[in-house]
Structure formats: structure tokens, C-alpha cells
């Protein structure tokens, strides 16, 4: 063997998305110290939360560092430029922490025309999709007694457009399940006023709010909603309340906000790399940094599990086609659940490139003495993940 296998890793370590990467160093250390980790050299690049920069560093990793495989995490703004580059360069790439639709459709020439969509040959993605989040959100809402009137906060960005997409997004599914959706339209990120949305929601008697705003926008919306006397029974929000700090920013008004949960210390999975349980991994992070666990930890870890597993199954790590084939053939029990590109739960066009991981729903609950805990309240699509309580109305 001798020469180490070269992995490139791109993530947003600085800039507005940096919270996604706060556990990177911890995970990387863990990987380096693991048994198989010794066979790898990981070259880490910072996208600076900038899509232009992400594409540039991907190019550098491929061309200058001659990596054997690319790993990339966190939001379509990072995963998409990197994956596009890898695909063009024919370098195997595994990505995660972006719903698969914005990842897959977002890289198609004309996202509006499904007939033109093409599969990827070197790029693979594991995460959940909008259908999962829709399932989780509606399951949570169904636990409550509501008028089934939903208000949408979809920004004009990769996530918002995917969530609000009339074909693959929320609208058709909600309609099927008897929900009415009030979607005033795609606003720009960093909007300072949401009175238009609030008025629209009030008019439609909205009792459930959903959406995928960035944290500052959700705070603005939520504060303004309270001021305007608009208090829905449920607010299931993606992205904005992913991190505990963001919920804490809402003061006491974050209580019982709900969100998707992709990974938590109570997920009953173990690392294929170290054997650690989810709780061990989260606890280790908190011990090492003094910070509360966050969801990306598991997925970033799983990314390296994937790398180790895939490379263990190829003879020549420099043979891109063989590596790509090995990725496609993955059957890995990882810390975020089973990862296999078998097309389960996916439409045909994405079947080859996407593997889905389980998703459950949680609510942030105010902790005595300050701070919030994320409590899993719905596991209908992944019953093996235990719940910690039932869905509660926002008072």
C-alpha cells in the first residue's frame, strides 16, 4: 500500500454557514485517530460559505491535490458547486446535509423541466428529501387538532424553491392530505418585514406555519407575528431552528417550535468506524468543546464512515470508475442509519445517486434554568428511533 488515500473535504468553516461545520475539527480528529483513518490523508478546504469559493477549492483539491475522492457537506450552497465540479472532473464525490431535491434538481440545467434531467456518474448524496420532511411535518400536525390551514414561508433560495415547488415540494402533498396552503410567494433572504405574510396568514386563518427561512428572518417573522397577535398552533420550521443558539435567540418564544430531526444522541445507531453510539459521539463533542450537540455532527461523521467503507472495497483507490461503482454498491450501517443507493423511496430519476436516511420530528422545549432541548415527538416514518414525548401546541 504505502501511499495514503487522499480525501478532499469541503465545508463552510467560516462565514454565515459556519455553524454547520463547528464539529468538523472534532470529527476529523476522531477519524484521524481511528484505525482505518491512518490509511487516509484528508485535505480540508473552507468554502467561506461562498459558492464561488466552494467551486474554486473543489477545483484545487482535484487538480492540485489530486484527491481520490471528494467529501462535501452542508447546504446546497456548498454541496452543489463542489458536486458539479466533481462530476465534470469525473472525481467520485459523496455529499450530505442538503435535502436531496435541491441537490439533485438544483444541479440540472433547467430545473423546471424534468424531462431534461440527467443522472450523475460520480456524485452520490445521502440525506433525506422533501417527501420525508413533509411526512414528518404532517405527522406532527396530525397529532394536533387544527383547521389544517398552513402558511408557508419559503425564501427564494435553493431550499425555499424546492420546498415550495408545485411538483416535488410541499404543495401537492399537502393538498392530497387535505391541508390548504397559503403561500404568499418567495421572499428574499434578509427581509426585514413580514407583515405581508402575517396579514396573508391571518386572512386565511392559518394555524400552522411552515417554511425554511434563515435564522435572522425567522426571528424577525416570529417576533413580528407575536406583535401582530398572530399565534399559530404549530410552527414547523426547517433550517432556521436547526441550532440551539438560533432558538435561544428567540428568548422564551422558541418553546414548542418544531423542526425536522435528522440525527440526535438518541438515534439508535452506531459508528461503523469507531463503534461509538450516537450518544457517545454527541457526548464526546460536548466534552471536547463544551458546546451543545448539533445535528450535523452525525452526518459529517457518517461522511467519513462512507469514505472508509468505500475505499475498503476497492483495490485501486485512484480508479475513479471503480470507486464510483463501490459508492453505488454501498450498504453501510452508519451512525445516521443505513446508507444504500438502492433507490428506496425515491423517484426513478434520482434512484441511482441518492440514498435516504431516516427522518423524525422534534420540538424545542424550554429547559428549566435556560436553554432548549430538542425532544423527538414524531417517529412515524422511522419507528426505531425513540420519541421523547408527544407534539404540543404552541401556547
Amino acid at each position: 500500500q504505502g501511499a495514503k488515500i487522499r480525501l478532499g473535504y469541503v465545508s463552510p468553516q467560516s462565514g454565515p454557514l459556519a455553524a454547520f461545520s463547528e464539529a468538523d475539527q472534532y470529527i476529523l480528529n476522531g477519524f484521524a485517530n481511528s484505525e482505518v483513518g491512518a490509511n487516509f490523508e484528508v485535505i480540508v478546504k473552507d468554502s467561506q460559505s461562498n459558492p464561488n469559493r466552494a467551486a474554486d477549492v473543489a477545483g484545487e483539491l482535484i487538480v492540485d491535490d489530486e484527491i481520490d475522492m471528494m467529501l462535501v457537506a452542508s447546504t446546497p450552497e456548498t454541496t452543489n458547486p463542489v458536486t458539479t465540479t466533481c462530476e465534470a472532473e469525473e472525481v467520485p464525490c459523496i455529499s450530505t446535509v442538503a435535502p436531496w431535491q435541491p441537490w439533485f434538481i438544483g444541479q440540472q440545467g433547467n430545473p423546471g423541466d424534468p424531462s431534461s434531467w440527467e443522472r450523475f456518474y460520480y456524485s452520490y448524496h445521502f440525506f433525506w428529501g422533501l417527501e420525508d420532511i413533509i411526512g414528518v411535518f404532517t405527522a406532527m400536525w396530525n397529532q394536533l387538532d387544527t383547521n389544517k390551514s398552513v402558511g408557508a414561508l419559503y425564501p427564494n433560495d435553493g431550499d425555499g424553491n424546492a420546498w415550495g415547488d408545485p411538483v416535488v415540494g410541499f404543495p401537492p402533498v399537502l393538498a392530497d392530505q387535505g391541508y390548504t396552503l397559503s403561500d404568499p410567494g418567495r421572499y428574499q433572504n434578509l427581509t426585514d418585514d413580514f407583515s405581508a405574510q402575517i396579514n396573508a396568514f391571518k386572512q386565511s386563518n392559518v394555524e400552522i406555519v411552515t417554511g425554511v427561512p434563515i435564522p435572522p428572518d425567522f426571528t424577525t417573522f416570529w417576533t413580528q407575528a407575536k406583535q401582530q397577535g398572530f399565534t399559530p398552533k404549530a410552527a414547523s420550521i426547517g433550517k432556521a431552528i436547526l441550532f440551539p443558539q438560533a432558538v435561544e435567540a428567540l428568548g422564551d418564544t422558541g418553546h414548542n417550535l418544531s423542526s425536522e430531526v435528522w440525527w440526535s444522541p438518541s438515534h439508535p445507531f452506531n459508528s461503523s468506524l469507531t463503534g461509538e453510539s450516537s450518544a457517545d459521539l454527541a457526548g464526546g463533542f460536548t466534552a471536547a468543546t463544551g458546546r451543545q450537540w448539533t445535528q450535523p455532527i452525525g452526518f459529517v461523521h457518517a461522511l467519513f464512515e462512507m469514505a472508509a467503507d468505500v475505499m475498503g472495497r476497492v483495490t485501486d483507490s485512484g480508479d475513479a470508475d471503480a470507486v464510483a461503482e463501490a459508492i453505488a454498491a454501498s450498504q453501510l450501517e452508519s451512525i445516521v442509519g443505513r446508507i444504500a443507493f438502492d433507490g428506496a423511496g425515491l423517484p426513478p430519476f434520482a434512484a441511482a445517486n441518492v440514498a435516504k436516511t431516516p427522518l423524525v420530528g422534534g420540538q424545542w422545549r424550554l429547559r428549566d434554568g435556560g436553554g432548549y432541548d430538542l425532544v423527538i415527538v414524531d417517529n412515524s416514518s422511522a419507528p426505531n428511533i425513540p420519541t421523547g414525548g408527544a407534539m404540543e401546541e404552541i401556547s
Partner: protein
Amino acid sequence: MIWVDTVVQGVLLGGLYALFAAGLSLVFGIMRLVNLAHGDLIVMAAYLILVLVTVLGLPPFLAAAVAAPVMFGIGWVLQKYLLNRTLGSDILPPLLVTFGLSIALQNALLEGFSADSQRLPTGAISTSSLEIGALNIGVLPLLTFASAIAVIIGLNQLFYRTSLGRAFRATSDDPVTASLMGIKPGHVFATATAIAMLVVTLAALYLGMRANFDPNIGPARLIYAFQAVIIGGLGSLWGTLAGGVIIGVSQTIGAAINPEWQILAGHVAFLLVLLVRPRGLFPRAVD
């Protein structure tokens, strides 16, 4: 009724923009200094308040009162030793130096505070509101608007009723002749920026209480502040308020039509005003 609400919310939003813009207006009006770091200075002040709140356990308003003199000093030093050296007929030096400052400041804050979004603890005030007829008017936005008006009245008093204000106007008109009067333009400019930093502190307080902030949000707010100043006309503080309100109301009306047009509507209003009145609504007679 929705339209009334839309306009009212827009006016209140305009108050926030005017508050962001008032300090800029002061500096721009007196020195023609385009300070691209203004938004980042607001963010910096917000962090300063946050530190005081978390470390000393002060309530936000008190923390802002403590932060104000610190910001005043920072403003004075910044102007005296850095920005004064860039003033002149060429607009590039101030543009580039404040651009550099903006980038440096953002990244220093990022290094110090991480990219996590933060907010000042506000308690009940942030969500309480007054009910007037069918309208709900948030207490915090109202307070913001009232503060904007108070700041503008205060600055106008300072400008037109004190000898310092006289010196501001004289130096702004003609620094060379002002120096013949024994006025030190360098000091006057430093004082102006220092005062602008007091307003910045107030803006930071409301920014931090209203919603999240992180080290990178400065530039997005800067553009509205500039628009308010320019729409209002160079050196007119009431004009700045009017400018802020125009941007705010355009945004809410645009959003009421379709949220897609919200921010665009503000920009378009700005462009339209400039198309009709290239020097803003209330330009100074002589310039």
C-alpha cells in the same frame, strides 16, 4: 385595513432604516465620506452590547448606555487617525479604506464571536404591542421609530443650536476657511464621527433586539441606509427619515403585492426618486 397596516408597518420599518442611516447621514453630510463600514460598525456595536449583557449581566438598554461612550471613543480615533487621511475630492480613498475596514471588521468579529447568530435578550417588550383599532403596533418597532425621531431632533438641535453644530456646518461648507477661524477640521470631523457612533450604538441596540445578528449582516443593511441618506438629500436629517420611510413603505407595499417584490420595490423606489431628483428630495442649496 390591510393596506393601512401595510403602510403603518412600512413607516415603522422606515424608522429602523432611518436609525441605521442617521449616523451615516451625519458623516456623509459633513465630510462627504462614504463609509462602507457603517453597517459593520453597527454590528460591532451590537456585539459590544451583547458582551456587556452577557458578561456584566446588564439589561440591554443599560448595556447600550455603557457601550455608547466606548463607541464614541472608537469613532473619534477611527476618524482622526484613519478616515481623515482619506478625505479629499477623490472618492476612491474613503471608499477603499472603508471597504477594507468593513472586510477586516467582519472577519475580526467572525473570529471573535463565530458565525452563530445572536440576539440581545429582550424579554416581553419584543413581542408586546399596542392595539389601535384593528391595528397591532409592536412596542419595539414603535420605540425604534420614536428613537429615530428623537435622534433626528437631537441631531438637528445639535446642528442648528450649538456652537459645535456651527462648526460642523462651517467645516462642511469649507474646511479651509473654517481653519482660518481657528477650527481644527480634523477634530471637528472626529467629533462628528464620534457622535455618529452614538447613533450607531442606538441602532445596534434595536437591531440586536429586533432580530438575530451575525458578523456578516452589516452590508445588507448598509445599502438601505445609503438609500435613505441619498433619497433624503445630502445633509438633510429629516430627509434621511423621509428616505427611510420611503424605502420601508415601498418594501411593505411591494411585499403585499408579492413578497418576491419586497426588496426590489425598495430599490426601485430609490432609483425612481433619483431619476426624478438626482440630488435627493431635500438637497442642500449650495453644494
